[in-house]
């Protein structure tokens, strides 16, 4: 598992980097976009709020103007004053007055305002309700003593407006109202009452649960707002904001409270001097307009989609790469013949191709090196084969001279013949390989010379299978073993024999050299192969120690020599060659 993860490291890195990149990008773009569109939204909102305010302003102005007109017409009517005074010469006059009073209101624009009601109240205690089908809930005195009546009387000529918890009549007993009042000379007051709820309709369709509107009268008192109740905290804040805006002389103010942002916008109504305050909660409004949750959802969906597409694409792209990596991992000391499949993108194909080329180059280079090495060693061995130890030559010549001096001419002649033949085969014959027959002949010559020189107490016998006579073996390959047996197996001129057997076995050529000498100590058998000692008396430079190397170099690991020795009984050398018949 760990290996899988490790081996998928690249894939995971790409995927995670890209996914992280996408997420970062989405977050960054999302944030920037939302922030900037929020600002735009705020600007647009604030602009539209201004238009809304203008709209409300003009609507309110018309309404206010009509209210002012109605109350003015009523308050200036002589019939009204007469009616409130209650002083009539006769009942007919009173009747007349009442009918005329009704006509004054009938002829005013009051008829346009179904939701309004008119009440007249006089200091004399007389009241009049236009088309009144309601009852007063308080006495005339109480009405006249109410705040709005006192205000109206004080500001004799102008209309006063006030919002009240409830009106004067049964119909408005439990509902907030807005009352427009104006003094009727010194006699009383005319009131036009509208349910605050109805008044609110004038602007409430501009409000929402994210924006509030409050209307203030000239003296800064709240006349109406789309929200019936503001908490004390809220009204405190509103008062504070109003003050701050007045001090700074600005029409906008943004108040931040932690994450909660509120935008206040105030506008003064033309003509009426009323003020309208808009409060919006931009975050909430924005959330309503822009569904953040959907944005998040879309982000996740898009990211997942991109990631899954990426997954496939990157996987497809990296698979050949991984194959290449696997292929490369299989390359070892013993195995260089590993080639990659050339698939995938052009880059990876090129890479695989280059790798394959490289492997080929390396392989052929190594082959070349091996070949050169081998040739070098062969040349070296050949050089050694071609050499004859000069001491051997001196000593042999000295032996011949001795024979001559003894006048043993026959023997001297034979010895010279053997020596010449040996020299010819060694130095003159350029062939590296000779037949078994030839090499045995060389060996016989060598043995003859040795026997002349050292005596004949060691007998050498040759048993060559007839079908082996023409097999090819390296020249002088057997000589070092016989030499070794001559000089080490029979100390103190012991009698003994050396047998050389040549035969075929299992399609190999097997040559055994056995002696019945003293044998070689166990330690020496092990040391045998590493024996570097070069005896002065060696025939040539090839010691028995490197015969094995020679054979292996020429024929491969399967071939070579084996040695068995037992102290006091003798030594057996076995040499294995491939069959190489002429």
């Amino acid at each position: 598992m760990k290996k899988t993860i490790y081996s998928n490291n690249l894939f995971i890195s790409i995927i995670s980097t890209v996914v992280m990149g996408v997420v970062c990008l989405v977050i960054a773009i999302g944030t920037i976009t939302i922030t900037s569109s929020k600002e735009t939204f705020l600007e647009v909102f604030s602009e539209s709020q201004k238009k809304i305010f203008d709209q409300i302003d003009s609507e309110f102005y018309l309404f206010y103007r009509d209210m002012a007109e109605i109350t003015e017409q009523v308050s200036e009517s002589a019939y009204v004053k007469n009616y409130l005074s209650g002083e009539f010469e006769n009942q007919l006059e009173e009747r007349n007055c009442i009918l005329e009073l009704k006509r004054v209101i009938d002829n005013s624009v009051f008829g346009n305002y179904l939701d309004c009601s008119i009440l007249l109240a006089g200091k004399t205690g007389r009241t009049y309700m236009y088309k009144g089908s309601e009852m007063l809930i308080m006495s005339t005195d109480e009405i006249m003593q109410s705040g709005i009546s006192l205000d109206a009387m004080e500001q004799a000529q102008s209309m006063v407006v006030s919002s009240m918890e409830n009106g004067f009549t049964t119909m408005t007993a439990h509902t907030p109202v807005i009352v427009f009042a104006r003094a009727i000379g010194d006699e009383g007051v005319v009131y036009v009452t509208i349910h605050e709820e109805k008044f609110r309709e004038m602007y409430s369709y501009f409000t929402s649960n994210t924006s509030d509107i409050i209307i203030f009268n000239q003296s800064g008192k709240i006349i109406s707002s789309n929200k019936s109740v503001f908490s004390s905290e809220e009204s405190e804040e509103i008062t504070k904001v109003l003050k701050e805006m007045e001090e700074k002389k600005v029409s906008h103010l943004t108040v931040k409270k932690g994450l909660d942002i509120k935008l206040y916008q105030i506008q003064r109504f033309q003509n009426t001097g009323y003020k309208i305050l808009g409060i919006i909660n931009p975050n909430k409004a924005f959330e309503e307009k822009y569904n953040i949750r959907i944005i998040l959802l879309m982000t996740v969906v898009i990211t997942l989609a991109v990631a899954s597409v990426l997954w496939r694409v990157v996987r497809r792209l990296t698979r050949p790469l991984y194959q290449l990596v696997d292929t490369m991992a299989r390359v070892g000391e013993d195995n260089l013949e590993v080639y990659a499949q050339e698939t995938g993108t052009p880059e990876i194909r090129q890479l695989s191709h280059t790798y394959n080329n490289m492997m080929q180059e390396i392989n052929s280079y190594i082959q070349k090196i091996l070949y050169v090495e081998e040739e070098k060693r062969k040349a070296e061995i050949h050089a050694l084969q071609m050499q004859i130890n000069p001491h051997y030559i001196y000593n042999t010549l000295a032996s011949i001279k001795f024979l001559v001096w003894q006048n043993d001419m026959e023997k001297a002649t034979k010895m010279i013949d053997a020596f010449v033949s040996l020299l010819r085969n060694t130095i003159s014959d350029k062939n590296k390989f000779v037949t078994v027959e030839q090499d045995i002949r060389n060996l016989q010559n060598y043995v003859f010379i040795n026997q002349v020189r050292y005596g004949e107490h060691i007998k050498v016998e040759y048993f060559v299978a007839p079908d082996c006579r023409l097999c090819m073996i390296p020249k002088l390959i057997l000589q070092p073993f016989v030499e070794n047996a001559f000089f080490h197996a029979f100390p103190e001129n012991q009698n003994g024999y050396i047998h050389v057997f040549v035969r075929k076995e299992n399609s190999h050529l097997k040559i055994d050299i056995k002696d019945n000498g003293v044998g070689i100590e166990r330690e020496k058998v092990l040391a045998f192969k590493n024996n570097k000692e070069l005896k002065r008396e060696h025939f040539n430079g090839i010691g028995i120690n490197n015969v094995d190397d020679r054979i292996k170099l020429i024929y491969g690991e399967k071939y070579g020599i084996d040695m068995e020795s037992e102290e006091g009984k003798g030594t057996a050398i076995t040499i294995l060659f491939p069959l190489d018949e002429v």
Partner: protein
Amino acid sequence: MKLKKLAALLLAGVMTLGLTACGGGGGDTTTSKEDNVITIWAWDEAFNIKALNVAKEMYEDINPDVEVKIENMAQTDIVQKLNTSLASGTYEGLPEIVLIEDYRIQGFLTGFQNEFADLSDIASASDFVAYKTGVNQIDGKLYGIPFDSGVTAIFYRADLVEQAGYKKEDMQNITWDKYIEIGQAVKEKTGVHLLTVDPSDVGQIRMMLQSAGAWYTDEEGNVDVADNQALKDAINTYVKLMKSGVVKEAVGWDQLVGAMNNGEVMSNPTGCWISPSIKLADEQSGLWAVAPFPRMAENPDSVNASSCGGAGWYVLQNVGDTDAAKDFLKNTFASNVDLMNQLVEDIDLVSTVNAAADVENYKKGIEFYGGQEVFGDLIEWQNNVPVVNYGANTYRVEDKIEEAVQKILAGEDMQKVLDEYQKQIEAEVQ
């Protein structure tokens, strides 16, 4: 700025995409009102609204799924709003059920017949007192459920009458002349006026007319003023009354009720719906009595019975849940005798449902009226009310009649004035 707009646009685009992807199941917002909610408009908190609240309570037991909303409004507002909305075909804010006065319903039914639901399937005209259903029907279809009776009577202070040397018997089946005579005696003795009159409302003339089986218009709906003997008799009686010195001017409901509750007048000859308002003055309990409406001595057709006001329930068929509205009326005002019985107690209702004539509460003596079995009397008088076709223009005509009466009161020749107004009214109405 441009960049920001672009960004906003981009965002909007992406979001539209998102919304389209996620939307689909979103609810569409229609302007139609929700089902199972019915709104009812009516006036008079002490009477109609109270009755509605009782009916609502009873209906909740029958059909708890329907929410009934009751809105108290001035009658003039209801009339104006209905007129405006129906004329312009905008139904927003209109109720399913509306209470309309008998005098006005013909105007609505002739003007906007298609706006009102045919109620023939939940009630029939014969279920109600005869004089009430004349105005509810067009082409044999019943469009309204008659509600309160407008049967008139003299509601009077028996104690004051007695102080002036008269007895209760002296109040029975009297003429207007006798009524004025008693009033003058009471005024002299106690200083209390006989009755209040609102100069801008000639309701007394209207009642006198119906007592004689006449109206401002004839059977065919033609203006009948100049040659209307009953009208002339009524105006004469009215002038007599006005000049008798026993009338107190009172403008509007507040002053009308106030005058009675404060003991400023000794009586009020008007529709029986005034009773709950009279009863507002607890301290006057036992002092009041009820007598038949006065007749006009000059007019042989005039009887001691008339009607004033009274209204019916109507269903607007293009507004909201018409079926729920019909079901509400069917189970309450159209048939529910238990409801009527309860309303007799709660608001002194004189029901116009025939089946309710025998309900228990009608037989009770009313303590406020000195133990008199007022309802039994009112029901009896109700049956004597002459049937009149109010036509479609009662109040428009009456506005003019007011002016005419004012002129006659000021001394102008009655025939001359009426001739003039016959033309004026014809011009206005036709």
